[in-house]
């Protein structure tokens, strides 16, 4: 049974309007190794797995699920294991893209060995996991509606998505058997890269901010009227949430996300 096909309609009716408001506005978040790489190397985009630093598990999951090489985002969540710079992109950024979404981390579902635990019939082997992964896939233009229903049905309060496990369990026991939030975080995939200049917010660790200052100091001075350099364009956008950087850059970005959607 695909995840979220078993939602209790009565239980969610009362919470649905508020959860839909959160779902409609939640920014997409991507963590990359360092912003310096993305500034120095064209096309200055959050890369797809064809060019990015994604793991072999990501490419393996793409192959098994029949997905194109994709750029990966989480709905409102940031994980420091992916790098030292976290970006947030405003709701609606997906409108210009093709892609898909899943209500969990597909790399965790299909890594070898699998990181996410669940119970499928007759076994939770790779064939069943692939079938489950395919059946749970969502069209890119519909994931926010499903995300709203998910928040309303599985959490007592929308903020719990950032702080706790779902309070109800799913038939495949994905939420029961895992403590890792990648088991219930929506994964959004773009089939194309996404420009770093379109970011709504970003935050990095202190090392990245020092590197950025060094990079800036090496850049020639831009003559008025000349085209802006990539670095000039980057600085013309939103400044870092923590100007000197912070080791807890993911927590800081998630705090900003929650402020934007008032949870």
């Amino acid at each position: 049974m695909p995840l979220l096909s078993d939602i209790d309609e009565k239980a969610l009716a009362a919470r649905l309007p508020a959860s839909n408001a959160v779902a409609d506005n939640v920014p997409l978040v991507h963590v990359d190794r360092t912003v310096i790489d993305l500034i120095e190397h064209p096309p200055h985009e959050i890369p797809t797995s064809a060019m990015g630093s994604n793991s072999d598990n990501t490419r393996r999951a793409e192959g098994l699920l029949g997905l194109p090489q994709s750029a990966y985002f989480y709905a409102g969540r940031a994980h420091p294991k992916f790098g030292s710079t976290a970006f947030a992109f405003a709701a609606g950024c997906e409108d210009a893209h093709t892609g898909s979404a899943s209500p969990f981390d597909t790399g965790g579902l299909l890594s070898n060995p699998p990181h996410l635990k669940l119970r499928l019939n007759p076994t939770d082997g790779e064939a069943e996991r692939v079938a489950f992964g395919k059946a749970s896939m969502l069209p890119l233009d519909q994931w926010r509606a499903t995300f709203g229903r998910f928040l309303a049905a599985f959490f007592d309060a929308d903020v719990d998505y950032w702080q706790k496990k779902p309070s109800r369990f799913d038939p495949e026991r994905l939420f029961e058997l895992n403590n890792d939030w990648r088991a219930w975080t929506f994964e959004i995939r773009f089939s194309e890269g996404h420009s770093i200049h379109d970011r709504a917010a970003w935050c990095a660790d202190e090392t990245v901010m020092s590197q950025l200052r060094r990079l800036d100091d090496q850049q020639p001075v831009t003559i008025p009227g000349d085209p802006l350099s990539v670095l000039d364009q980057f600085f013309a956008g939103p400044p870092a949430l923590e100007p000197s950087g912070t080791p807890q850059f993911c927590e800081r970005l998630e705090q900003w996300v929650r402020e934007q959607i008032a949870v």
Partner: protein
Amino acid sequence: MNSLKASDIEIVGFNGAPLVECGRSLPIAKRKSDGQHCVLDLSRGVDTLVWHSQEEATSFAEARQWTELVRSVSIPNACVESSTGSVITQPMMVFENETLLDVANRVPRPDHHDLEYLIWQPLKVGDSGCFATCASGPAVEAILDDWAQGLLKRFDAMFGQNPDRADLKRIADFALCAARSRELRRKAYLRYAATQEPDRMKRTFDRFIHTEFPKENWDCFLNELKTLRDILKVLPITTTVTQVDPSGCSTRQSLRDIANDKPLNLVAK
């Protein structure tokens, strides 16, 4: 809520890579009981930690998303509640490069801060000449600020001797990597600006200084910079510049080397 027992945890590295000469980062913890690893960020509570297998941890280290220590270190006692043995406050990693400590006149590395013992370990990444240790968050900030103070003192001592501008700039740059307190960061920015080409100074002010110090005004900053330059030029020359460190490599030589070296972010891949 679950608790994290310090006796079941060892620190095996830190998040990210040492791409500048010193800094701090979240620790990578390994649970002894099952070999699982996590980025030890307690800001959202122990229950929200995401644990990874040994295979994942190895792949993160190979991709330079995590940096491993040659040997693990313990959770600092300052972060542990003695009655329960639980980790209750955020531990932090601090890493350093020997050249920076030499220039800061902070060789050898400190073996304690207040009552916290510091066990320094080399990093596994190549021949980096970098070491790291784990301490409480306040201790790490104090250590970094102490290095920044040493670097600023070195800068001030050298300024009046008309040294190479590149030497001075690297010292101010090192100080900015180290300094955590607002007061020291502002001092470091003033000195960094004092060594820049005039054409770049306003850009640095707009992009970095003003974002960190939003109430700072360009005209006031410029005036303060002029005053600082005048004062530093008339300061008596101190003897620390010619001090020789225990490794046998003179500070003067180190300064020549760092001015000629490319910054780490350009060579570390």
